[in-house]
């Protein structure tokens, strides 16, 4: 088990992963049940659970979850629609890269929260503002990462296409894009993780709905159990999305070598 890069069975991998979750959970139970930490700072798991159940029943949690998911969906969708083709251009043609890359490198170093006031001026505080912020936050990173996915397709794969008679257009549509798709899926998974971060930032600053807003509101009333519920729900949603995309990718790209 301690062999460098040694393989372990799938079963023991799963067991270890579950044990890690259990350990954190046990520490939490231990700390709260013996009142080692003030309940205002660390609510007991039972309190968090009961708050979760209450919030689900009185219908205050679900709409917040739905609206947050909807914002993520739209933000990521628009970023992919724009970023995917632009990223492919940037990774394929040096001229396009010269135009696109330095701009993106510049913008991606600007911290997203700094855009919040600007986005409010531009788009107000409605839905479009949150989606715009997500869009700005993801787009420039996405373009650069898609461009890298394109350049990591081996030259000889393209050369093989050329010597089989592929035109430039065919090389892009029939070789380059299919070859890069599995990597794009990994990029997308990473982007969705970042999208949650930006969303919560947006919802904390200027919103009256969403999980970020519910966390912010709970803080005002020192309702730590509500904060915990908000955080845990975001974590679980992220985990489910990621696992879903992982299995989807395994199913769609079963042909990838070394998997």
């Amino acid at each position, binding site marked *: 088990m301690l062999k460098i890069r040694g393989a372990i069975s799938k079963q023991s991998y799963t067991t270890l992963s579950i044990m890690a979750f259990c350990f954190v959970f046990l520490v939490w139970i231990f700390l709260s049940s013996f009142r080692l930490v003030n309940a205002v700072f660390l609510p007991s798991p039972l309190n968090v659970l009961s708050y979760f159940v209450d919030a689900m029943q009185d219908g205050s949690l679900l709409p917040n979850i739905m609206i947050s998911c909807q914002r993520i969906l739209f933000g990521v969708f628009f970023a992919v629609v724009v970023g995917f083709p632009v990223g492919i251009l940037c990774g394929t043609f040096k001229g396009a890269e010269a135009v696109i890359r330095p701009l993106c490198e510049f913008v991606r170093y600007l911290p997203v929260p700094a855009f919040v006031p600007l986005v409010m001026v531009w788009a107000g505080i409605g839905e479009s503002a949150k989606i715009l912020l997500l869009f700005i936050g993801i787009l420039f990173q996405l373009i650069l990462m898609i461009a890298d996915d394109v350049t990591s397709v081996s030259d000889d*794969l393209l*050369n093989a296409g050329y*010597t*089989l008679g592929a035109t430039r257009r065919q090389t892009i549509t029939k070789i380059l894009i*299919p070859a890069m798709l599995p990597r794009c899926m990994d990029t997308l998974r990473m982007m969705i993780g970042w999208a949650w971060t930006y969303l919560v930032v947006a919802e904390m600053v200027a919103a009256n709905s969403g999980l970020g807003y519910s966390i912010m509101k709970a803080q005002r009333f020192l309702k730590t159990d509500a904060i915990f519920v908000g955080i845990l729900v975001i974590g679980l949603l992220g985990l489910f999305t990621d696992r879903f995309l992982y299995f989807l990718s395994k199913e769609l790209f079963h*042909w990838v070598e070394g998997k």
Partner: protein
Amino acid sequence: MVSFSTLSNALGLNRLAELNVGSVEAVGPSSVLQVNNVEKIYSSRRSKTVAMQDCNMEINKNEFVCIIGPSGCGKSTLLRMLAGIDFPTAGQIFANGRLVTGPGSDRGMVFQTYTLFPWMTVEENIKFGPKLLGKHSDVQNTVANEYLKAVGLEKFAKSYPKELSGGMKQRVAIARALANHPDVLLMDEPFGALDPQTKSAMQLLMRQIWQIRHTTVVFVTHDIEEAVFLATKIYVMKAHPGMVKKEIIVPLPEQRTLDLKDNLEFIKVRRQINRLIE
């Protein structure tokens, strides 16, 4: 260890012999590829490296030409220039009398690295060339079946590249290149990454394919034995700068089996090349 007859059975060579559809008509030497005074200079701000100078070659129809030389002699670069995916800094390359300005389906290529399209099945890989050229789907199927048979991989038509061994991948790559009916097949150390047994079997397969179809082949290798076994003509190159040192017409019979490697004449040619390269 598996004997070569078993291996050749496994490779479908016996069926290959049955496929023989009469001999190819005798054509007088006509050049398919011509390399005229090719020079390749890599220049950076500080230095200029002359990688190749005054390189001349003539590859005729139905020849099996091997290019051999020490590393750094530019043999792979030369092959890429023949394919049109790299370019000389001076001199010209002609394919069928036309100046090479880029890659084309008239010059098929098999690479040292595995370049099958991993998202396509073996069959789809082989059909890819004919499909690009807009061939009818019936034609695509016929061609795919013919070349699957030629490389003995009918059973793997629906497999994906990740399910194949290295030797099988290269067999598909050869089939894929041949399925386009190129005027010349360019091969860049295609068996370099294979184990010795598979390599021998692949050499035999390649030679048998050539004996039946007489496809013009340019084959780059650094393995002298491989070159002598396969070739009808060998260009021995020297390095720094790369140029042709000697052209050797291989004085061996047309029908070859792996036993030939123990033949006295074979060993003589091998020694001659060895001395040239040392």
